[in-house]
């Protein structure tokens, strides 16, 4: 029954599924690691136990999310070979070292010092513990550096030559690592991860404020998160715009799909909403603002913007996906900026922590970062189709010589496994949130034992003094 299944489509779905699942966790842990470092720093500087208690609560959530990120990440390191072996063969000379550097400079660092971060209380000095937190935080960013460099090279390849044997050979490593779209994609993604974490923290802080639980902790959470919303969310708009202009230069078809524009024209309108119809090669029911697209993209109301019809149909990306995901991402970005504005106004009126409707608002936006990150990645990954290496190699040519059957079965296995693991992870994170920071634990761990003797004498009644 599986013989009729298209291996290319299945391999694409499998990769899209495993990578989408994976990116949720780094998007959260990159921000969380940095925030934990800030919390521990504040604690060491001020001695205020609120920070220590917040750290203790969030490091557990971090551990769950990081664990899921690791196991889903190990899968990714094999996906290139299992499903895209022709790509691995042809692009291995260029891509391989980038991934190798990621393992050597980031993965070991994160994995080793995560152990110290989680289990090293009482075994290393507070300074060394803080150093471990910082190292893990830096490790997550180094990891993002290499993997985004590799991804960006596939989007905007340079610094290589095609050999007589059809393989790609590197000619300039600096050009490969710092390819044109990399600085923008890297900055955009790191900021996205920070904002994702900030809105999770804000949502949970708002939940505590709403329930009037852990109010002192919740004020720190909401306060710190809103600093991010006020200052970093608008920065993201700027960086996103620069990223878009860079894409216009190197991948104009992607931008045309994002905008839903089919005809090349001067004074192109901004299509707010509409229904991109690939069959008819037009955007139906379009609601447009005249000339705005040209203004945004070329900074000139009469600038020329290329439409999708410039490319033959078999070189156009699936437009509807790109079009809609782009609107979801930008829409959420706008909501985040709006949140920052509202928070600033409420703060100046000294009502930031006791405005009911704002608490609802923040709770509603808790998962917004994840949705925006996924939507953004859908834009950039679907928008570059049909190319796996832009203008060099097509995705359909990259697939492994594996039949539809094993791919379908393994895809089903991944879906079931991830559903179980993800469900359990969310459940345990939910329970950690329900328990909250600073509550004295009845039992330490889950085996009914009171606090371990090593820690107990140091622990004051209201919570841990030694994080």
């Amino acid at each position, binding site marked *: 029954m599986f013989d009729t299944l298209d291996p290319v489509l299945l391999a694409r779905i499998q990769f899209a599924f495993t990578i989408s699942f994976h990116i949720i966790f780094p998007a959260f842990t990159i921000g969380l690691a940095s925030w934990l470092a800030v919390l521990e720093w504040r604690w060491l500087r001020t001695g205020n136990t609120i920070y220590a208690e917040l750290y203790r609560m969030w490091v557990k959530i971090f551990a769950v999310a990081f664990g899921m990120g*690791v196991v889903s990440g*190990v899968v990714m*390191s094999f996906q290139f070979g299992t499903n895209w072996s022709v790509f691995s063969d042809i692009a291995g*000379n260029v891509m391989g070292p980038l991934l190798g550097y990621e393992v050597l400079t980031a993965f070991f660092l994160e994995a080793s010092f995560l152990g110290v971060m989680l289990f090293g*209380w009482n075994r290393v000095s507070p300074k060394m513990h803080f150093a471990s937190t910082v190292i893990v935080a830096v490790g997550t960013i180094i990891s993002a550096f290499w993997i985004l460099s590799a991804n960006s090279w596939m989007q905007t390849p340079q610094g290589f030559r095609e050999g007589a044997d059809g393989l790609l050979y590197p000619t300039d490593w600096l050009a490969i690592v710092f390819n044109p779209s990399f600085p923008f994609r890297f900055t955009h993604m790191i900021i996205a991860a920070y904002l994702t974490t900030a809105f999770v923290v804000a949502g949970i802080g708002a939940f505590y404020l709403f329930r009037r639980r852990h109010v002192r902790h919740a004020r720190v959470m909401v306060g710190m998160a809103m600093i991010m919303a006020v200052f970093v969310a608008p920065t993201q708009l700027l960086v996103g715009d620069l990223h878009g202009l860079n894409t216009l230069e190197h991948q104009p078809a992607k931008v045309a799909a994002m905008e839903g524009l089919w005809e090349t024209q001067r004074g192109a309108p901004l299509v707010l909403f509409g229904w991109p119809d690939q069959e008819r090669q037009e955007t139906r029911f379009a609601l447009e603002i005249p000339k705005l697209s040209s203004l945004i993209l070329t900074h000139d109301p009469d600038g020329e913007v290329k439409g999708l019809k410039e490319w033959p149909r078999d070189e156009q990306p699936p437009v509807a996906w790109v079009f809609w995901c782009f609107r979801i991402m930008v829409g959420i970005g706008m909501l985040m900026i709006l949140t920052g504005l509202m928070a600033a106004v409420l703060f100046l009126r000294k009502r930031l922590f006791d405005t009911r409707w704002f608490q609802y608002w923040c709770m509603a936006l808790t998962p917004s970062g994840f949705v925006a990150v996924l939507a953004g990645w859908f834009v950039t990954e679907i928008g570059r189709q049909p190319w796996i290496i832009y203008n060099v190699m097509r995705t359909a040519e990259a697939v492994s010589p594996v039949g539809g059957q094993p791919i379908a079965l393994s895809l089903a296995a*991944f879906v079931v496994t991830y559903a179980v693991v993800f469900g359990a992870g969310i459940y345990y994170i939910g329970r*950690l949130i329900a328990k909250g920071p600073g509550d004295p634990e009845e039992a330490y761990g889950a085996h009914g034992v009171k606090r371990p003797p090593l820690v107990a004498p140091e622990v004051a009644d209201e919570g841990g003094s030694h994080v």
Partner: protein
Amino acid sequence: MFSLEAFIDLPMIWYGLIITAVMLYVILDGFDLGVGILFPFAPSEKCRDRMMNSIAPFWDGNETWLVLGGGGLFAAFPLAYAILMPALYIPVTLMLLGLIFRGVAFEFRFKARKSRRIWDYSFHVGSLLATIMQGMILGALVQGVSVSGRSFAGGTFDWINAYSVMTGVALVFGYALLGSTWLVMKTDGITQSWARRSASYVLGYVGLFIAVVSISMPIMKDTIRDLWFSLPNVIYLLPVPLTTALLFVFIWRDLHTGREYRPFFMSIGIFLLGYLGLGISLWPWIVPHAVSFRQAAAAPESQSLLLVGTAVMLPVVLAYTAYCYYVFRGKASHESGY
């Protein structure tokens, strides 16, 4: 474009590095997978907590060596990566699924209350599945992979046969030996004496399977037979099986005289020697009996770039890995760590 090609034998160095990375993975993740294999047989819940705590700070770093093996293969020998991954599509996928189930159990188990049992079994079954698949991958590899041109040309189920099932089971006992001797070192009391008994129990099976593999490989391939049994090779290579046999005797004696550290390190010794034996037999193949490491080597520029990074980073990685083992030295407690 800078390249070290003119000065050193890049493919050779990378072959050595990949072999080392895989070896480190087998030893390091081997003992924590072994703990997972022995998990349900522990005498009490408290023992299981100790077992879990003895590896909790390390498992993540240990598994990273697998990523380095996979990533390193992709980087240094992309052709081998591109042939082996489709050939081993199903066992690799199953191994990854096993690693997922056991990996998340570390976090979930200590947070669960009623569902604790589920994560105990998730940890055990995941470890077992990952180990069997690694053993079967080994069994499939030594038998050879069918290749045409630059890609895998065999069938989806080539990897499964009686021989690979045997090596799958063999590795379960091998990792159980590493796991149990690790526990002898890292625990005390009831857990330790149980680990001692487990270690001496699996030791016999490990010896049996090593003998079976050692006898079967020369029978399977003439080249391997000629390599081991021709003069003067037989004299040079004789120390490998002899030392292995000696280590078995020492481990057996140590387990019964109460030594705590030596059994673990001598179990590692057995793995090193077995690995050395396999390496000698499979030289110079990277895709056994089809593609040699020279044929599969990445461009010299690519190997050079990563070699520079490896030369700088690998000692650093090893140093802080050692530091982490030092921080968590001593006996494991049964208390939840954080």
